[in-house]
């Protein structure tokens, strides 16, 4: 134990004193002069403020300020010329590229394209080569692409989603101003069309491996059906079967399922473990191995995204 006086000489004491800020290190050690306080007269402040506002007025006075006008004009002209030159040069470059549709071009005749064309059916079980390609050969890309949609909804939510109470208040205000006018023609048409659209969407999703279509296009059709329904009967009525909770459950389940299938597929493939999902008979609905479940997940995610965009832009909440 050091006596208090001795302790005060140690570095530790000085450090902790500095941390606590009980003593200013400069006071008594360094001769210092505070910056001279100089008073600005009220008139000068007023004058400066006036000058500032006048300056801003002059700068933003687009109608009469000739310099601003000239600058805008020159800027726009240069921008247009630059864009034209860029476009022209890019078009010129395209003319040097291989001809589109020529079977001998590298893109059409490389080993990759050949393998996709010749053995996609036996390797992926999908009659539709495109679906087989994006969901098995390049499964990782497509999972990324689905996540692009997911994060796009998140960003729209950040910028447009209102607190629940605010959204309701806004809705009431809007209704007070423009009373909701339910269009009988639209409702009747929607009654007929929505079931057909939904069935068509489901058909396209389920037949992704057999015919043109798949999760992305089928999901877009499903989403369009939902939007038509919401337009005809109002978002509140749609909320009876498709509200925020249903949306969250659908979206998270679909994406997690997709992720799990993807994880299983990548890990098995990379480590040489056999893939146990059967291909089925080509052409049947239950065929294509992992393609069908992934298509369903993608379809749900795309439909949710489409509807969420619509509802967020229209009302600020789901």
């Amino acid at each position: 134990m050091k006596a208090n006086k001795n302790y005060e000489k140690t570095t530790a004491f000085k450090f902790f004193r500095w941390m606590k800020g009980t003593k200013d290190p400069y006071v008594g050690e360094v001769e210092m002069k505070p910056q001279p306080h100089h008073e600005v007269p009220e008139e000068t402040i007023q004058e400066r403020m006036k000058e500032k506002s006048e300056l801003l007025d002059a700068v933003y006075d687009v109608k009469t300020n000739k310099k601003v006008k000239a600058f805008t004009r020159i800027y726009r002209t240069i921008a247009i010329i630059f864009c034209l030159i860029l476009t022209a040069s890019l078009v010129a470059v395209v003319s040097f590229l291989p001809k589109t549709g020529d079977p001998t071009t590298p893109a059409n005749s490389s080993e990759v394209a050949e393998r996709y064309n010749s053995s996609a059916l036996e390797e992926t079980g999908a009659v539709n080569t495109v679906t087989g390609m994006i969901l098995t050969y390049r499964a990782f890309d497509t999972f990324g692409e689905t996540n692009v949609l997911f994060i796009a909804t998140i960003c729209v939510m950040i910028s447009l989603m209102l607190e629940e109470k605010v959204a309701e208040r806004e809705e009431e205000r809007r209704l007070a101003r423009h009373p909701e006018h339910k269009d009988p023609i639209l409702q009747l048409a929607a009654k007929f069309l929505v079931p057909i659209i939904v069935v068509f969407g489901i058909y396209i999703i389920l037949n992704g491996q057999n015919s043109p279509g798949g999760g992305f296009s089928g999901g877009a059709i499903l989403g369009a059906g939902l939007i038509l329904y919401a337009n005809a009967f109002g978002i509140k009525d749609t909320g009876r079967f498709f509200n925020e909770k249903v949306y969250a459950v659908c979206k998270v389940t679909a994406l997690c399922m997709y992720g799990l299938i993807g994880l299983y597929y990548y890990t098995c493939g990379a480590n040489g473990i056999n893939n146990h999902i059967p291909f089925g008979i080509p052409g049947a609905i239950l065929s294509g191995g992992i393609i069908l479940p992934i298509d369903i997940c993608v379809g749900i995610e795309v439909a949710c995204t489409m509807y969420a965009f619509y509802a967020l832009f229209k009302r600020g909440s789901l």
Partner: protein
Amino acid sequence: MGASIIRNFPSWSIMLCLFSGIVSSVLKKRGARLVNTILLLSVSVMSGALLIFTWNSGVAYTYQMGNFPAPWGNELRFTCLEAAIALFFCIIMFLSLFGGNEHLNAEVEGRKHNLYYVLTDLLLASLLALLYTNDMFTAYVFVEINTIAACGLIMVRQVGRTIEAAVRYMIMSLLGSGLLLMGICMLYDMTGQLLMTQMHDSVVQIMATGDYHVPMTVAVCIITVGLAIKSALFPFHAWLPDAYGYSTVGSSAMLSSLVSKGYIFLLIKIIYRVIGFEAYHDTKIIHVLFIFGLCGMIFGSVSAIKENDIRRMIAFSSVAQIGYIYMGFGLGTFAGMSASIFHIFSHAASKSLLFIAAIGLTDVSGGSRKFSDLTGAGYRHKIAGVAFTVGSLSMVGIPLFPGFISKILFAQASIQNHGKMLPALIVLAISTILNAIYFLKTVIRLYTPVENSEYTVARAKEHKGYTLALILFIIINLAIGTCSEYLVNVINGGLLNEIAEGGKSLLNLLQTTLPA
């Protein structure tokens, strides 16, 4: 057995990030934060294990994503360099979130907190995918995710200036993405391949026969320009100061230290794995990068000197630092590239530290970012003052700090290139002086005593998380500054792997540039 499990780690860590993002979207704020913390820690552990594994073996690994091998399916490829960057990114992201947490609570609406963590999870996923992927199109998909996540991170604080900044960022960034996509399409049209390694073989053939000379040059140029726009190289930096200066502080730290670096690393991969270093050197675009890099080093610093807002000043300093990195590319030597990658590390560590420290200083100055209010802030918030000083010294290039090592490496690299030695060294010197002018000016102001200050003094006990984050940041900076040798070895090891597989022709170049 252990080794074969470790090889799965890159794929698993990307998938884990995506899963966490998806699950966080339905969680409450606390849950989302917990998931994010667990995610960052587990990805750090996985990357650390991967780093040890790849460092010991010293070779590059490819990992087949799915049932189909390379030219047909997706593929990941990693060496010790990728693992080291992944580990470093996780740590920086963790500390940035930790240090920016107090402000996040104040600046983001209650219901949107979990969405912030969704964005960070997906940002990490895209950064990891950009690091590990060996496929041009996968890279593009994750560039998209990266762009949208960055936009969200900027505008999550909903005030006018951040929204304007986010729109600007989006427009510029989409222009960059568009150019990148066009470049990839052109390369695909000429080669018929999407995987980097296979594309490289075709590119070598095309270069040898002399076909498609024009489109090849244009493709290389627009890919470079696209990624340069996205990483804010000098003439394309107009979006940067607002985006970094007004977003919530954790976002600023992450954007400046991670997002732009992901794109730069992608460009490095394209240079080495797809085009080939020598062929890239022959396209002359390298001289353009060199000149713009030099301009950025000067003009970024000049803008920073003119700035009267501390956070915008730090943001402008990023323009200068990105200029350093592209100047290293422009030198066109192995050593230049290695110095650039080292600067990615040192800039990320120092810049995120500066952003986090600056917010503590503005908090004890009544929330004002003006220098006149910041006078004496170093006494009012001790640890933030010290941290800011450390960051500034590193940026200026004082020994013991990472900035010094990167400047030394740049100077050494420039000596090996006879044509560019003089301009590089002169601009390096001028830029150092300019850095010193604005950073040391700020430090002196922070430690100028004021009498009767009306602002409160911050106590470390009230900001435990923040203080801890700053201390860890300082430790990381000192570690990179003092133990730089290991990091340089890791970088050179990773780059050598690229060269040995990316074209034997480079070995000659290597022998002339590396001391025996």
